[in-house]
């Protein structure tokens, strides 16, 4: 009975030709499709092109004034803080989250580093460690709320932003620690503000000027790029951002990944707080108010998808540099600074439009 059901069914008779054709991969692509495929595989390419083009345009318009080692490294100095916070933001955005508390964590950490040194007389290096610890701890709370309590990252970090900022003003009693005092008693706090020059003339003018903060930015971005590409944890960050359920079923410990991502984000923001003391010289509880918006801008212009799982930290660096190039370039041209914001706004929308277009290559 019913033996006729064994083997392929009648309607499949047409399949007698080798069925492996299912797994063929030679597809003819138009040049546009090829470009899209390339961009899909190397998401940091778009911001790199935009960066090179904008440097060329400003270089052509302004000549030596812009296209010099001094000016270009000045841009790097100016984006150091946004870039470092952007690196933290990158990690969170790759998991399809968002961290609105980055700026607040940065400020509170810098205040802790300053106040622990000056109010309690704790040795400065120890205070720095305390500041880094505070940043990581806040990040850990964010991560726990997102991963274990299943609260939306936007809400968690929106709340944390207010909490941390208020704690920052209450704890610091709104007082600023003066630059001279820090320079006299706790120089290590200003470490990332100190500079060295390469290729300066004999009077010590011109040439490339680097702050240690700028160096930290480069080192940190390269380190994170390595971790995201070459370690299991990095691959898991992408997998969680891509499809958390699939990642969980495939054996990724999604909760652990999320908690470590937010903790690391907090730690990196605290590092940015240390760099900020170097940049400002002083410790001010009112500094860095726009760091969260600026870091999200760098991430978006850098081609990292807010839907998670796509993009690279190098793209974020290029995104931050694009903003820096526009700001300084337009300032040197003497235009109204509002033009900078207007152009950045256009870039943000264009970047998301490009992201959507590239995503279609997947389909």
């Amino acid at each position: 009975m019913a033996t006729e059901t064994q083997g392929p069914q009648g309607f499949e008779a047409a399949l007698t030709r080798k069925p492996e054709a299912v797994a063929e991969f030679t597809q003819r692509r138009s040049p546009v499709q090829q470009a899209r495929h390339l961009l899909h595989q190397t998401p940091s390419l778009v911001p790199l092109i935009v960066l090179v083009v904008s440097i060329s345009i400003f270089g052509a318009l302004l000549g030596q004034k812009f296209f010099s080692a001094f000016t270009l490294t000045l841009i790097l100095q100016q984006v150091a803080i946004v870039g470092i916070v952007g690196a933290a933001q990158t990690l969170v955005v790759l998991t399809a989250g968002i961290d609105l508390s980055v700026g607040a964590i940065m400020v509170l950490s810098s205040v802790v580093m300053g106040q622990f040194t000056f109010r309690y007389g704790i040795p400065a290096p120890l205070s720095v460690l305390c500041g880094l610890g505070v940043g990581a701890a806040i990040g850990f709370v964010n991560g726990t709320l997102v991963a274990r309590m299943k609260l939306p990252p936007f809400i968690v970090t929106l709340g944390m932003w207010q909490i941390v900022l208020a704690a920052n003003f209450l704890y610091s009693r709104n007082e600023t620690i003066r630059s001279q005092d820090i320079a006299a008693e706790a120089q290590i706090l200003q470490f990332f503000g100190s500079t060295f020059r390469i290729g300066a003339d004999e009077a010590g003018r011109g040439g490339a000027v680097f702050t240690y903060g700028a160096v930290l930015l480069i080192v940190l971005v390269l380190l994170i790029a390595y971790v995201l590409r070459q370690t299991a944890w990095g691959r898991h960050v992408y997998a969680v951002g891509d499809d958390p359920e699939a990642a969980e079923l495939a054996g990724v410990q999604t909760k652990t990944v999320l908690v470590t991502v937010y903790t690391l984000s907090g730690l990196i923001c605290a590092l940015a707080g240390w760099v900020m003391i170097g940049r400002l010289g002083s410790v001010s509880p009112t500094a860095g108010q726009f760091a969260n918006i600026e870091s999200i801008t760098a991430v978006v212009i850098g081609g990292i998808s807010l839907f998670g799982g796509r993009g690279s930290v190098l793209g974020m660096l290029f995104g931050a540099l694009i903003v820096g190039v526009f700001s300084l370039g337009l300032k040197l041209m003497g235009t109204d600074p509002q033009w900078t914001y207007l152009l950045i706004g256009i870039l943000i929308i264009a970047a998301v439009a490009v992201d959507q277009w590239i995503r279609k290559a997947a389909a």
Partner: protein
Amino acid sequence: MEPILKARGLVKRYGRVTALNNCDFDLYPGEILAVIGDNGAGKSSLIKALSGAIRVDEGTIELDGKPMNFASPLNAREAGIETVYQNLALSPALSIADNMFLGREIRKPGIMGRWFRALDRAAMEHKAREKLTELGLMTIQNIGQAVETLSGGQRQGVAVARAAAFGSKVVIMDEPTAALGVKESRRVLELILDVKRRGLPIVLISHNMPHVFEVADRVHVHRLGQRLCVIDPRRHSMSDAVALMTGAMAPEQLNEFA
């Protein structure tokens, strides 16, 4: 012969709904056992219990005669039970090799692996290629390409290859042909038979009766949270199976016809 995977008296309740009602299950070495049942019969709960995705309220699961207590799919995997989920559990943006080794990556030997935790890409790609070739899927040219660039059948192939590569005891496949076209289904059925030829027993959950009757050695009919009966697809027809599944026929009536 002793069953390789055996469950006795499984009970799973969700509030007032009883999804598994004192359910038994047996899978013998080297066979393809199909599990069929109407929607809501409790097939998914049974499979989830076997693959560690849910914990049962009562009952025992034995693998190779040893009692098992799975707290998560990871436990089941470590015990040698691999599951191909209906949604495949692949990360679209990651490469084929990355997906196959997700959660059990190989690290480089020496300092790079231990201190810098660097992945051994070459080893993973080599192994992935080897597995795909074994299953005749090596028309997939570039092991580094993202899974989202693959067709539905190819993705299914990657998921099956992953299970076959790591499953040492049992492979569970949940609706492997549900989302596929005729041609791609045929390829996946061949894959399933390939895996069986390599000696791995397979639990196949499917709604597609022709597919079930083509590849299964035995058919477990699930009804109202229980194993209603196990039939031999060579001795019974598809309409018998459907009648059993829906309750139009009682298992006792089967023997009269058989």
